[in-house]
């Protein structure tokens, strides 16, 4: 079966082989140009590889959008202590399903990306931290990794270069917070998945106390292509500040939801109307969450001229995040959606920080009460204040991540709340 949906406006650097089982094997992947990136990196050397990735403008695809080459250059240059590369494959952000597809269709693409990243930062060990529920993806990746070891692409003396890079798979237990970089490190070390205060930053004191770089699956996959083709090549797509292509995970009330790889800067409305085949049943657009559940909700007006790049979404009042676009039509019940997010964050908060531990669950309970028709207008003020207290006050940004949808939904969809509070009416059918 062909991969669910394709569109001619896509630029499929990473996703061309999605849906094609032949690309899962090492031969299949090599036939598609695989492992040329690591070969070139080994040829041009460590510093040139980092410089290439810097020049490409590639930014982290895990949500924060930090320039990848810059992050790599933070790693200490003296080789006295072991360095580690961590590949963040914990993909748990509601609405996000791109890393899973990279892993299950193009496992060698990820392995190559890990080799490039590890080589660039001087790490001889890379851990891929997989979300616990990624059962199939893990099996596919494990098989591919065996092939890579057998072909001399991982382990000792990669491609006869004398460079040694081991790749280890680590399956988590299914906790969202283990996707936060320092939480992931704690978890990998065998502790509770609890984020750590920064500084010290991972490049100084990371996993096992050693210099560490952590990158998202898609970031590393893209880095493999940059390594192969060079930094300038990558800049032909995207905008000045958001270069290259990005996988957009579109879900919700569109006719053709799915993963679409598009150049950054692609217009949001074109994504909905054209690429995704328009709104389901031709209904009117009500709201879009452009970057996974952790970012502010946009109303239909804000979507109109929004371009899907880091700076474009920010200008429209939200964040690109990991580019998980959740589209909601007029039948969507915003209060319920936000309450469900609150339940999620309350469930996934690691519980260290007071504003997050207490704030997420308190907000969830208030939202539930409003949803049940027992809310008051004071509750909205309380929610706004709680959310402000949860912003910028905690170790990681899980707490901010719930505050964003609460604040934005109350600001932009206050009438939905008021209808429930005043008349017990749910707006939207769902």
């Amino acid at each position, binding site marked *: 079966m062909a991969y669910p949906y394709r569109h001619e406006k896509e630029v499929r650097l990473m996703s061309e082989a999605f849906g094609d089982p032949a690309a899962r094997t090492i031969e299949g992947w090599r036939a598609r140009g695989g492992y040329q990136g690591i070969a070139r990196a080994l040829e041009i050397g460590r510093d040139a590889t980092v410089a290439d990735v810097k020049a490409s403008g590639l930014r982290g695809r895990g949500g924060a959008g930090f320039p990848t080459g810059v992050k790599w250059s933070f790693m200490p240059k003296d080789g006295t202590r072991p360095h580690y590369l961590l590949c963040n494959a914990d993909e748990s952000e509601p609405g996000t399903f791109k890393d899973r597809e990279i892993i299950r269709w193009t496992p060698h693409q990820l392995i190559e990306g890990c080799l490039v990243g590890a080589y660039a930062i001087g790490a001889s060990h890379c851990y891929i931290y997989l979300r616990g529920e990624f059962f199939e993806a893990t099996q596919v990746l494990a098989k591919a990794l065996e092939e890579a070891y057998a072909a001399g692409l991982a382990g000792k003396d990669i491609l006869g270069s004398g460079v040694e890079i081991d790749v280890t798979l680590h399956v988590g237990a299914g*906790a969202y*917070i283990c996707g936060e970089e320092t939480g992931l490190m704690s978890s990998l070390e065998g502790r*509770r998945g609890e984020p*750590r*205060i920064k500084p010290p930053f991972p490049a100084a004191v990371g996993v096992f106390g050693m210099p560490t770089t952590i990158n998202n699956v898609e970031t590393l996959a893209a880095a493999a292509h940059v390594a192969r083709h060079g930094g300038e090549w990558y800049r032909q797509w995207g905008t000045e500040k958001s270069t290259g292509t990005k996988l957009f995970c579109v879900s919700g009330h569109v006719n053709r939801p799915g993963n679409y790889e598009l150049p950054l800067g692609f217009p949001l409305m074109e994504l909905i109307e054209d690429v995704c085949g328009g709104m389901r049943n031709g209904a009117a657009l009500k709201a879009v969450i452009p970057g996974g559940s952790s970012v502010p909700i946009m109303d239909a007006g804000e979507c109109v001229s929004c371009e899907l790049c880091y700076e474009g979404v920010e200008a429209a009042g939200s964040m690109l995040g990991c580019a998980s676009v959740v589209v909601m039509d007029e039948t969507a019940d915003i209060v319920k959606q936000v309450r469900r997010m609150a339940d999620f964050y*309350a*469930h*996934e*908060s*690691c*519980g*260290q*920080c*007071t*504003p997050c*531990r*207490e*704030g*997420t*669950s*308190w907000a969830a*309970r*208030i939202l539930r*009460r409003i949803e049940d028709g027992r809310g008051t207008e*004071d509750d909205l003020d*309380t929610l706004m*204040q*709680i959310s*402000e*207290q949860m912003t*910028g*006050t*905690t*170790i990681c940004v899980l707490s901010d991540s719930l505050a964003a949808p609460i604040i934005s939904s109350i600001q932009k969809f206050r009438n939905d709340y008021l209808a429930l509070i005043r008349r017990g009416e749910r707006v939207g059918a769902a």
Partner: protein
Amino acid sequence: MPDNGRKPETVALTIDGREVVVPKGTSLLQAAAGAGIEVPHYCYHPGLSAPAQCRVCLVEVEGAPKLQPSCVTVAQDGQVVRTDSDEALEMRKGVFEFYLVNHPLDCPICDMSGECKLQDYVFAEGREHGRAHEPKRVFGRDDFGGDVLYYGDRCVMCTRCVRFMEEVAGDPRLTVVERGSRAVIDTFFDQGLEGASFAGNVVDICPVGALVSKEFLHKARAWDLDHTPSVCAGCSQGCNVELHTRDNLVQRLKPRENQEVNGHWMCDYGRESYEWINRPGRLESPQAGRGSRRKPTDWRDVLGRLHARLQELRGAEVIVIGSPLWPNEGLAALDALAQAAGQVSRRVFRSPRAQDEDPLPGFPLLIRRRDLAPNVDGAGLLGFDRDGSDVGEGGLDGVAAHDGILLVLGDELRDQSEEFGASAALFVYLGTHDSPAAANADFVLPVTNFAEQEGTFVNAQGRVQRFQQALRPPGTARPAWLVLGALAAALAGNGPPPSRADGAFAALVAAHPAFAGLDYDVLGVAGAPLADAGAATAAAAGQRAP
């Protein structure tokens, strides 16, 4: 940077408008504390790592984009910090409200009430009324084993207890289970805190009433307790403690910080061994006469008769039995009296010893020592030799039948018969409790225990430590040094005896070179090492050998 004897580097900053100079590397929280500004905090504890998770100690630092956790933010030169800016206060108000969302507010029945940091902070900085109307989550109570009970609903999840067990006790028996607001502290499977010999400290460092002592549960309200700086009498480590008393009884012991001795900690053995201080049935007035001829009398009479008798016997052989539960002043006065009275042939003490030491891994200075008495080292320095077995009995060969002068202080002679001292020319028994083996005593003198007087002990490190008086003595009981010092001075015919504890200490310093150079006032509540602490402990170790 190498510090070749130069002053450690310092940084100067402004906190709440005050100029503060602190050593490089000091956290903002500590820097503020040094200037007398308390930044509220829960997860930070000076004896533990700082995870910066409670988010209470956030302060405003000029130039920083958001509030900074003062417990882990290092003070920088020229920094301008405000712990009480509107933003910081507003944020703290919010955090305290969060704490109360699920808190049961059961202060009226909570042991911590009155010394609870949640109560204090919310009262000082919190909102007048909470806005949380939702049902609270309920955990109930959990027995953690040992002396520790856990009230999960009161827990502020600071994880101090977890970190103490892991980092200091080196025995990670507590953990956080579950996540979010369902998170709760628990033990692993079937193993609790039982047998963990330093676990009681988790009750002390718990900032709220989540961890409480079973032994202390509902025994006293915090505000009814008097706190007296003292020294644990459990072993020769001499942990600095506070005696918490009410109704003239010790209710509990709490460790008192001393980085040279016990850090912030103490052991459970010491914490739990205080009932002997409260033991009823005390000797309340002096008595004179052997066996059935024994009669209560008063101090004036008894001291007069005893003095006369000592003069009659002057030059006789004297055997002295002391006790390392008694402070230096009493033991030194006992020795002085013996010397004035005659030929001292033996000076001994008996005292129980544990099989092993019990060190605290995360604070290596603190070791529960083998000697289960506070002043074994002081007794050694004052010329007393250990006698008897490791349970503090036996020995005393030939003492029971001694025909000279027999002076006993503090040893209840539990293992001795009623014939003890029958042939002694003079048998003087000073103690807190009467004893069958004191039947032949010519004089029975009620003396105070250490909690009923002030004085000093020498610990196993060769450190002289002062303790203060926490309790009123029973009846007319007096400190041993006062009784013995008066007799010794009268007998030796030298000046007036000391009438205060500082004088008693000065007298012992004058008489015993090991204590040279020490001054009672200078000792303060933190104590000071002997001039030659090493030699002193070596001497003590020598006399300890079997």
